[in-house]
């Protein structure tokens, strides 16, 4: 199987990839490129999770990020009126606040990394880790996860009802009309 040296090498590659692409998110000049860099960064973090023995969680992270980043890129392009997101634009703003926030977050995480106590038990093999996760999701934490799941489902249905072509204000194909600003105003 894979030797420990190869695992270490893979960790270094994934970690560098995550940092470099994460940095590039803010230094690129296009929203779609930023989304792709962010996706690469998350995929590298997913790879590190797989190396840590969280095989299921790491792969699910990579799986979920693909769709999320694509939707994010398309929605950003729609809002920014920047056709295709290829027109150059500055991706940073409020530099001073961002720099302070970034520094504080970095120091806090470094402090946790240096001062925190980390478990040193051997990692269980991936199959039993996946099984334990399943038992947790459908055992003690079931109420929490099912509540979150139903809430998200209701949100999705609501969003589709609002955004669908047969929306609140009539069919989009026939020119839907918003209601007036006054409550009792007649809708055309």
């Amino acid at each position: 199987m894979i030797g420990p040296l190869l695992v270490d090498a893979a960790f270094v590659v994934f970690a560098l990839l995550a940092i470099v692409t994460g940095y590039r998110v803010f230094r690129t000049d296009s929203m779609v490129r930023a989304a792709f860099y962010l996706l690469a960064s998350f995929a590298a973090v997913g790879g590190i999770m797989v190396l840590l023995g969280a095989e299921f969680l790491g792969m699910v992270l990579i799986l979920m990020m693909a769709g999320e980043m694509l939707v994010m890129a398309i929605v950003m392009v729609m809002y920014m009126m920047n056709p295709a997101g290829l027109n150059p634009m500055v991706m940073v703003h409020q530099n001073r606040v961002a720099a302070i926030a970034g520094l504080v977050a970095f120091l806090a995480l470094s402090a946790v990394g240096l001062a925190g106590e980390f478990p040193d038990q051997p990692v269980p093999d991936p199959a039993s880790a996946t099984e334990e996760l399943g038992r947790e999701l459908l055992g003690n934490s079931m109420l929490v996860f099912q509540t979150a799941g139903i809430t998200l489902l209701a949100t999705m249905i609501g969003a589709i009802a609002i955004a669908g072509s047969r929306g609140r204000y009539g069919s989009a194909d026939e020119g839907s009309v918003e209601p007036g600003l006054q409550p009792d105003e007649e809708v055309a």
Partner: protein
Amino acid sequence: MSEPLALPVAIATVGVALVSGGYVIAVGDRWLAAAVAGRPSSLRRVLAAPIAGGALAMVTSRTTTERPDGPGWALAPALLAALAALALAMLPLAPGVAPADPDTGFVVFSAAIAFVMIAVFLHGWSSNATLPLHGAYRYGAQALSFQIPFLLAMLATALPAESLSLVRIVEAQASLWNVVRQPLGLPLYLVAGLAVTFWGPLNLPDGHDLAGGTSAEDAGIARLLWSGARTAMLVAVAAMGAAAFLGGYHGPVLPGPIWVIAKTLLLLALIVAAGHLFARIRIERFVLVAWVALIPLALLNVFISGAILL
């Protein structure tokens, strides 16, 4: 516990399967096109046509557009081909033998399928041109619609196996194939699989109505690489369908790998034939059908499969 193949053997197996599968698709596609159109075609010409087409593409000069995203454009076919290789690497070839058999094989396969939308969007977006971008947006809508039914249909096969490992999923079909156990599964998988591989009636991102869609600005070797990656993805989806629903290597008399190849070819024949027998449908209609019909049917499939096991 299954023994993984040695790394060079695994890489060679996946590579040979993707390239030879791609050639078979190219030949079959041309042969079926001629047969459906009622044009006589000699076997020799059909066999030589993909090679001649590839050679022509290699000497055709490449084109470029105004201010494209060069790295993205070059990366997209490589990403799609790599995803096909990743998906195919999970394929069980014989009892306990697969190029790679992680315990979460199903999730790795799902992640590869999810990233296809990134590859196609990147391909259409990076050339900075109108028609490819239309194709990219179309595939975004298509991908968000097919992904849930495709993966739910596949997930139902993990229930009788009680494992996310694809080797276990095939092992669990020793007595009864999933195509019988879950009659809804294979049709859902094939319809959504057409959408995944954007083939035939669901070739919306690269369709002729967009003058080639995401590959409209590709010429020469770039076009060859993209169509090669597309056929590789089709091989991977068909092979995985054969493993998850048609019992993979299970079969009488012949050795396991022969059955894997035969069943994969059967599904490939169905998919390629669909390209010549059905008209392309509009993206709005596909999205509607996916959300209103395919997802509820896929959920029903999962519920019934689960209820039978209880």
